[in-house]
């Protein structure tokens, strides 16, 4: 392998790519050539660095200079100043890394300081489309150790002792799952990877597959060896084209290197992996539905038992784990189960990746040890809510989860503590909400989603969620009635009790948690016909504060329905009978004269 004096790492995850990071990479390559430095400096396209809100991100090693929000036209300056003259371009560095007496390493900034990267270890560190770089970072070492030094039952034992639990949401002990599948009778067994990341607000699986696809392939191969399977399937969302492309490249390279296919590493062990694209159905994240979908049927869940470990894909014993779970396997094999179990809390070991989104300053992916508090994640790592707004709640676990209110911000994050609040760990989506978000509206929003996504098999899920959604829609429109809250609670309990799969059993959670913690907001909507967060359109009115209005006419010009009238330099007014409450005027006003009542 060639040695270079400087490595330029450019994020080519989906976030940064959408803000033109490929153009930045091309400009770097061009500029480096112009200066004749192509023998000394290499440009690497990597996976996600995690701090998506500051994208596009470029990190230059060995100094680890963290350039944020880089534009293609900035590249020339960086090359001339930093790469040629050795002077870091401070203006473009992430502000937090610049101190009075120098420059901080990225590991010292608040966003990264508390993070421990196990599943995300290679994201942003290697070029995901180059297997050699993965191998240089201990890649395929765990596989060779398993195939040459360990018996299948020893591998399972290591996974069991590590205390790793399923990262897709269920939290079932991974080692036990492997053990059940290994012990099941059958001449053919399958290893499946659930990459059907359907929770809106969670994108860690996507980032792992985009940034470090080999870690999943290697772990699946190890799983195949442990349970006695020779064929693997990765079921991935078609909405993730970049991840699919990187996986395809990785599978081809692994086959070329003899790390997939027949007689892996000359040990006589055969294992291969195929990709199956999901076709857009949230319920296919449920294991029996996912299996039905790979088999070519409608993705409807079935009764368990028999569990997939006994009777899964094509009726054969099948092991099914989530992407993030697999991403933890190789470090566990390499560093030992004690190392992994030393992190976390009593019943939740290791680390967990969270996708921070919504009303928070630093959006992106963070990986922290289990047992970290919500406060540390939201304030220390995430930097709190923007514009000094008050933090109101965090939604965890997507449509199956719930809203954890500000007063529980010191909740320790592990499977059991989160479940106690009424939310669930889920796949790790954390959507932060501030004072401007209406909790009734959030509950309605999630039911909009689950109504669409219910497969329709169980009556309570199919009809019950629809009825709940109708009640919530009525409440947000100001047509709520006394007794609505109680009716919602009754329906919720029955839906939970009478649904076959996780979708129905958990769909009422967003409603139940918001009623539990924000009952007063429901009551304000129902009794006073007011939305305290001033979000529900039917319950608010846009007004112009005559004292603040300078009569600049900007608002009347942007209003799409011509609801604003007034003379130049005189206070304007909004005709509420015409106003569609689109908010464009408020957004445009330079004097903050438009208020919501």
């Amino acid at each position, binding site marked *: 392998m060639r040695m270079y004096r400087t490595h330029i790492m450019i994020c080519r995850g989906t976030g940064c790519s959408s803000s033109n990071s490929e153009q930045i990479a091309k400009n770097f390559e061009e500029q480096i050539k112009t200066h004749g430095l192509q023998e000394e400096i290499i440009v690497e396209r990597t996976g996600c660095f995690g701090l998506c809100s500051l994208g596009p991100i470029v990190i230059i090693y060995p100094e680890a200079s963290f350039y944020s929000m880089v534009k293609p036209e900035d590249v020339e300056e960086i090359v001339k100043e930093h790469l040629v003259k050795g002077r870091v371009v401070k203006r473009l560095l992430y502000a937090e890394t610049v101190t009075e007496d120098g420059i901080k390493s990225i590991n010292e900034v608040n966003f990264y300081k508390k993070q421990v990267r196990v599943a995300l270890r290679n994201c942003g560190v290697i070029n995901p489309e180059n297997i050699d770089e993965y191998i240089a970072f201990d890649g395929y070492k765990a596989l060779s150790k398993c195939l040459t030094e360990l018996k299948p039952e020893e591998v399972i034992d290591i996974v069991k002792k590590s205390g790793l639990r399923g990262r897709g949401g269920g939290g079932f002990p991974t080692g036990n799952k492997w053990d059940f599948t290994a012990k099941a009778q059958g001449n053919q067994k399958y290893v499946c990877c659930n990459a059907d990341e359907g929770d809106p607000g969670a994108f860690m699986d996507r980032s792992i597959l985009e940034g470090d696809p080999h870690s999943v392939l290697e772990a699946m191969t190890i799983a195949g060896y442990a349970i006695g399977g020779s064929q693997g399937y990765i079921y991935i969302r078609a909405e993730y084209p970049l991840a699919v492309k990187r996986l395809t490249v990785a599978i081809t390279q692994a086959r070329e290197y003899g790390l997939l296919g027949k007689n892996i590493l000359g040990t006589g062990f055969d294992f291969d992996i195929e990709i199956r694209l999901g076709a857009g159905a949230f319920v296919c994240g449920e294991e029996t539905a996912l299996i039905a979908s790979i*088999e*070519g049927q409608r993705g409807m869940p079935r009764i368990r038992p028999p569990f997939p470990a006994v009777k899964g894909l094509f009726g054969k014993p099948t092991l099914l784990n989530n992407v993030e779970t697999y991403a933890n396997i190789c470090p566990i094999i390499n560093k030992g189960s004690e190392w992994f179990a030393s992190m976390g809390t009593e019943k939740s070991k290791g680390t967990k990746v969270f996708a921070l*989104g*919504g009303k928070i300053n630093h959006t992106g992916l963070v990986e922290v040890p289990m047992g970290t508090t919500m406060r540390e994640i939201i304030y220390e790592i995430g930097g709190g809510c923007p514009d000094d707004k008050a933090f109101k709640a965090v939604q965890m676990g997507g449509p199956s989860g719930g809203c954890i209110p500000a007063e529980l911000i010191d909740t320790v994050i592990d499977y059991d503590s989160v479940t106690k609040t009424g939310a669930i760990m889920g796949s790790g989506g954390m959507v932060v*909400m501030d004072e401007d978000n209406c909790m009734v509206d*959030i509950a309605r*929003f999630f039911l909009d989603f689950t109504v669409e996504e219910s497969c329709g098999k169980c009556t309570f899920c199919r009809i019950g969620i629809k009825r709940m959604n109708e009640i919530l829609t009525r409440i947000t429109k100001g047509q709520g009635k006394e007794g609505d809250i109680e009716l919602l609670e009754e329906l919720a309990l029955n839906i939970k009790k009478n649904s076959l799969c996780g979708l129905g059993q958990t769909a009422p959670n967003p409603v139940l948690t918001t009623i539990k913690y924000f009952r007063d907001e429901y009551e304000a909507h129902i009794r006073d016909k007011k939305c305290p967060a001033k979000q529900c359109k039917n319950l608010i009115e846009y007004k112009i504060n005559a004292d603040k209005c300078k009569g600049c006419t900007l608002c009347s010009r942007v209003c799409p329905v011509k609801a604003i009238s007034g003379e130049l330099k005189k206070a304007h007014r909004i005709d509420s009978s015409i106003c569609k409450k689109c908010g464009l005027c408020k957004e445009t006003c330079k004097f903050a004269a438009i208020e919501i009542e």
Partner: protein
Amino acid sequence: MNNNKCCCAERSHYFDKFDKILAMYEGKESDLIPILQDLQEAYGYLPQDVLDELCNRTGMHPTQVMGVITFYSQFRLLPTGQNLIKLCFGTACHVKGSDKIAEALKEELKIEIGETTKDNKFTLETVACLGCCGLAPVMMIGDDVYGKLVPKDVPKILEKYR
């Protein structure tokens, strides 16, 4: 072979793509979803005559094929406009005001969600999550991603595709 250019010749040409795709599969039940995905990629949607041909050739029953198509949101039985707009309605986008972006798009295009403009330039759809929550609110037009949107960005962005 004669050079008679009747409608049958055109018809067979129309099915070239179909033949090529079907040749890649054994035609077993578990191939159904990948076949449909490839057909949609090739034809832009799933035309009825192509589906009829699929049933004839694989022996799959039309109810089975339609059952699968209507279950998954990816499959479409009607063609889309030249530019497919996918507006993200995920949680992060919702709390950051994706409904206002939807209003702006509807206003600008004069269509509702799920519809295609009269000039066939745009189809407007919403999706559950595009997975770039860090950039919320987000939409995709074709393969281009637009993030951190505010309603007033919408006309400028659409202009590029007109």
